[in-house]
């Protein structure tokens, strides 16, 4: 053993001895790790550290009554179970380090160095320091003397200073309601001290002071590091001596020593949208998940602000969803701003997530946002904020969660969500907003937010890979905002007001938006935004504005420096040759966004960031960019996975003109496809013509006759299993005479399998369409939801709702209708039975009636992709993007097909 190692071991042993009381209480031997290191067995030292850590966590597990027994649990499971009760991210990191070191040391292939053993002991000391600081009798064996509420508050304060890298140095319980704590932190050769005296009220402190002969503990620490914290600061006059050399704070305002809350709130209030305008009351529904079906149902309805305040004050995590412009940001800002006038959870922080760089870590974003308001070194901003958040001391308002997701995919969502779990705990109060379509329409994401166990193995694996224990995923309630009665939005009402003759030139600068304006706000949001953009940009600048900002959105860029704007739009976009936000000609559409993330000149004017005042502006420009085929082509060239929101799709569908052809020919090109929570651009490399109608019984019978005459070998798929015939599965038919009674000749051919559909297509010298071709043919170049457009049009489609007397929104409603026998008569209908069910390319009856086989096969499952929904599905399932899969040998009354042919 080297002399240097020996010295370090002696020092570590001395530090471990400070926690001897815990060792005695739990029957642990803190000398064994040091002995093992001294004997040259660092792997044994790590094993001992692991065992000690397990014992500590098991005690914590029992103390907090974590469900289940800690016996037999692995260290990883113990950390996972106790995680909600360990507020300090630093301590969690230390625990994970110990776990990693032990895993490595238990693995044969790894060399364990002395340094690894020393790190393990050092991490154990971090855990012990925190453990000691909790000062719970149940944890340490120390007989409790403090009143429980004082002990809990002392624990909270101690944990905060441990997070700041202080170590507990002294602790004296001076009475049942008064506790003295001294913390020390070493900075090179300098030691920093913080002294906390926590007491119930002035009377208690005076009593303690008298009992100690007129003086408390004598130290020479400067006043700024000596705090007297009173649970109740209205409890009498403090002795003058205590006022002189200590900062006196009430416990509920102790965070004022760390955070300039008033300035933060003032800055938030000053941002767009301003809160000084009278706004339309926003109503909403509080949703909870049905335990059986996992679907959301309304548990409470009313004024959104009241529902929100109720959750915020009571604790728990909440997701506010609503359409763009529905008032999510306004509500959230109101909630944060109201903190100034309330007592409970008054520390509320607002984060505009649209300003977070796509590749910027959440921790860096929080640090960048809060550093100006926090009186701690930059490196501690995030750990301290996390500590407050996880302890439930602050309300964390995250605006525009969907705008910060790096990719609008499940993986992208999980990445950000995993980062957020740092601030979310069993006790936290996190309120965040998002578009309806993104978080609510994805069943997987919905289940994740609900914290239910309905997660797929893949999702669970992805969570583990991100370091998140799926069992510890916090649960979010959902508040869904309603549209106004007329279908208008708050943003639309604001715009209508601003665009009126005499309306505010600088929209959002405090004009009064009346309730009437919102309720009569029939103007299409896209049209209103476009009017505003064209009025501000003018004809000269408009094409470049569409091209630059539209494409930027699709590339995921939503904040811009003034340098960017000069480079892209030229000096002509700035008045008077001056580059400033004030001289930016279209500045009315923007808001300052602080220093842009990643800006190398963050402090200078040129590095100043700007963003559109509402994301919908840039989404509209993205839709405009995508309208011409060359725009979609350029978008796919510029970004492998363009950022496509449901709002972009909605604008694109609303603002596109009528489709060009009705000849069922789909030209080659780039098209928008996918469900609203996973929109994509995909390229069709060659033109294709789809059958106008699904294959009918009449057509299929001609095929059967041909097969009966000469066999089908020439048309069969080479991989078709032997012994198959192309006869429909007649026993399965809901209508036994379906293929015999000519009344069904014009109905879709059903109860035939994929192999038969494939052979039929070849019989007609065609092929089955790919799932992409099918979807593009159904939704056209504008990405509409249904073949006929975005509107719900019940007479246009054969689906379960058409056979019922009311909309079948949920599984429960569908099931009830089925059990009532109302869907008994639901069957496929004639292929030309719905003249309105026609796509922009002239293809008929694609939505509903029957699902349709495509040539696309999911190789892993050996199942074919089917599209379009059928007569027994609810309306939501008959969208142009609806997809499922079905085994290739399967034959169903609800599955038919149509053919496609290549055009050269």
């Amino acid at each position: 053993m080297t002399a240097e190692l020996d010295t370090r071991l002696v020092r570590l042993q001395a530090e471990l001895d400070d926690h001897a009381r815990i060792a005695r209480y739990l029957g642990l031997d803190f000398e064994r790790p040091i002995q093992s290191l001294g004997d040259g067995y660092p792997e044994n030292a790590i094993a001992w550290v692991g065992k000690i850590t397990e014992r500590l966590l098991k005690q914590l597990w029992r103390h907090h009554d974590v469900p289940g027994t800690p016996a037999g649990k692995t260290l990883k499971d113990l950390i996972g179970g106790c995680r909600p009760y360990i507020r300090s991210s630093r301590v969690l990191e230390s625990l994970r380090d110990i776990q990693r070191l032990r895993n490595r040391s238990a693995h044969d292939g790894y060399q364990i160095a002395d340094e690894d053993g020393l790190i393990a002991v050092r991490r154990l000391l971090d855990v012990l320091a925190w453990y000691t600081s909790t000062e719970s009798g149940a944890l340490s064996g120390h007989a409790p003397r403090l009143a429980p509420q004082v002990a809990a508050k002392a624990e909270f304060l101690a944990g905060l200073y441990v997070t700041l890298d202080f170590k507990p140095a002294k602790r004296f319980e001076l009475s049942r309601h008064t506790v003295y704590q001294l913390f020390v932190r070493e900075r090179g050769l300098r030691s920093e001290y913080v002294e906390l005296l926590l007491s119930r009220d002035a009377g208690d402190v005076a009593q303690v002071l008298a009992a100690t002969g007129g003086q408390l503990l004598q130290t020479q620490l400067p006043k700024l590091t000596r705090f007297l914290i009173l649970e109740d600061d209205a409890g009498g006059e403090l002795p003058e001596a205590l006022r002189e050399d200590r900062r006196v704070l009430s416990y509920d305002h102790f965070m004022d020593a760390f955070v300039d809350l008033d300035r933060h709130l003032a800055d938030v209030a000053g941002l767009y949208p301003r809160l000084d305008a009278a706004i339309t009351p926003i109503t909403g529904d509080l949703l909870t998940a049905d335990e059986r079906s996992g679907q959301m149902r309304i548990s409470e309805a009313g004024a959104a602000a009241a529902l929100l305040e109720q959750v915020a004050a009571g604790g728990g995590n909440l997701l506010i969803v609503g359409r763009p412009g529905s008032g999510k940001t306004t509500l959230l800002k109101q909630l944060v701003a109201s903190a100034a006038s309330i007592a409970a959870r008054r520390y509320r922080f607002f984060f505009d997530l649209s300003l977070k760089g796509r590749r910027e870590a959440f921790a860096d974003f929080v640090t960048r946002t809060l550093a100006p308001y926090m009186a701690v070194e930059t490196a501690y901003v995030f750990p301290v904020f996390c500590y407050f958040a996880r302890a439930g001391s602050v309300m964390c308002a995250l605006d525009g969660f969907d705008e910060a997701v790096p990719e609008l995919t499940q993986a992208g969502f999980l990445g950000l969500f995993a980062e957020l779990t740092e601030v979310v705990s069993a006790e936290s109060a996190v309120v965040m907003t998002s578009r309806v379509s993104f978080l609510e329409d994805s069943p997987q994401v919905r289940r994740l937010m609900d914290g239910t166990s309905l997660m797929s193995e893949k999702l669970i694996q992805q969570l583990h890979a991100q370091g998140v224990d799926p069992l510890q995923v916090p649960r979010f309630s959902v508040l869904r905002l309603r549209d106004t009665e007329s279908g208008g939005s708050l943003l639309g009402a604001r715009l209508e007001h601003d665009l009126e003759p005499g309306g505010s030139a600088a929209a959002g600068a405090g004009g009064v938006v009346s309730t009437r304006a919102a309720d009569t706000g029939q103007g299409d949001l896209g049209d209103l935004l476009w009017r505003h953009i064209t009025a501000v940009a003018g004809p000269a600048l408009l094409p470049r504005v569409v091209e630059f900002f539209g494409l930027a959105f699709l590339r995921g860029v939503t904040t811009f420096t003034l340098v960017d704007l000069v480079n892209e739009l030229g000096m002509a976009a700035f008045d008077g040759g001056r580059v400033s936000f004030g001289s930016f000609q279209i500045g009315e559409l923007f808001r300052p966004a602080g220093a842009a993330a990643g800006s190398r000149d963050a402090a200078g004017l040129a590095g100043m960031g700007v963003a559109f005042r509402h994301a919908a502006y840039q989404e509209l420009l993205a839709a405009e960019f995508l309208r011409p085929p060359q725009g979609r082509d350029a978008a796919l060239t510029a970004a492998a996975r363009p950022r496509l929101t449901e709002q972009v799709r909605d604008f694109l569908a609303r603002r596109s003109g009528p489709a060009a052809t009705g000849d069922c020919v789909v030209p080659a090109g780039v098209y928008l496809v996918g469900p609203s929570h996973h929109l994509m651009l995909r390229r069709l490399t060659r033109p294709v013509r789809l059958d106008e109608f699904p294959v009918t019984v009449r057509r299929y019978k001609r095929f059967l006759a041909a097969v009966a005459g000469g066999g089908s070998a020439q048309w069969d798929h080479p991989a078709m299993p032997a012994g198959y015939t192309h006869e429909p599965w007649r026993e399965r038919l809901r209508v036994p005479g379906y293929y015999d009674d000519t009344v069904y000749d014009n109905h879709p051919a059903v109860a035939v399998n994929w192999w038969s559909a494939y052979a039929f297509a070849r019989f007609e010298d065609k092929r089955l369409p790919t799932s992409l071709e099918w979807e593009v043919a159904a939704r056209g170049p504008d990405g509409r939801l249904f073949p006929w457009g975005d509107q719900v049009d019940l007479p246009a489609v054969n689906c379960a709702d058409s056979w019922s007397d009311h909309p079948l929104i949920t599984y429960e409603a569908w099931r009830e209708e089925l059990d009532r026998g109302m869907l008994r008569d639901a069957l496929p209908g004639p292929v030309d039975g719905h003249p309105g069910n026609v796509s922009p390319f002239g293809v008929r009856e694609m939505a509903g009636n029957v699902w349709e086989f495509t040539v696309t096969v999911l190789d892993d499952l050996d199942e074919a992709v089917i599209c379009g929904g059928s007569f027994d599905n609810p309306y939501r399932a008959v969208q142009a993007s609806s997809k499922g899969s079905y085994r290739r040998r399967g034959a169903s009354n609800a599955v038919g097909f149509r053919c496609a042919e290549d055009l050269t």
Partner: protein
Amino acid sequence: MTTSPGRRAGQLPAQERSGGPGGQRFGRITDRRPSGSGPGGRLGTYFVRDDETATTYSFDYADIVTEGFRTIRTGERVRFLADFADPGHASYVIRLDLPDIEDYYE
């Protein structure tokens, strides 16, 4: 400031996650028969084996919670409810391992 560490409002109680008696169960589909359910008994019947108790339950296509196409394959992992009022029958069957969206476009 809130300091109480005991509240777990943000999380489901463990028994709700793991499924108590009569609560949610997890299992795999073991068999599928071509008939026995649906109008006229012309639709398939499915069987699921409880991961924990090895009990086998049956269900029909209407018990599958989806808004889309109702089918399920052998070996698939599901969550379901075991109903005391109807022993041996699984209801609210939710498929857990569906393909990724992009797989449908390959």
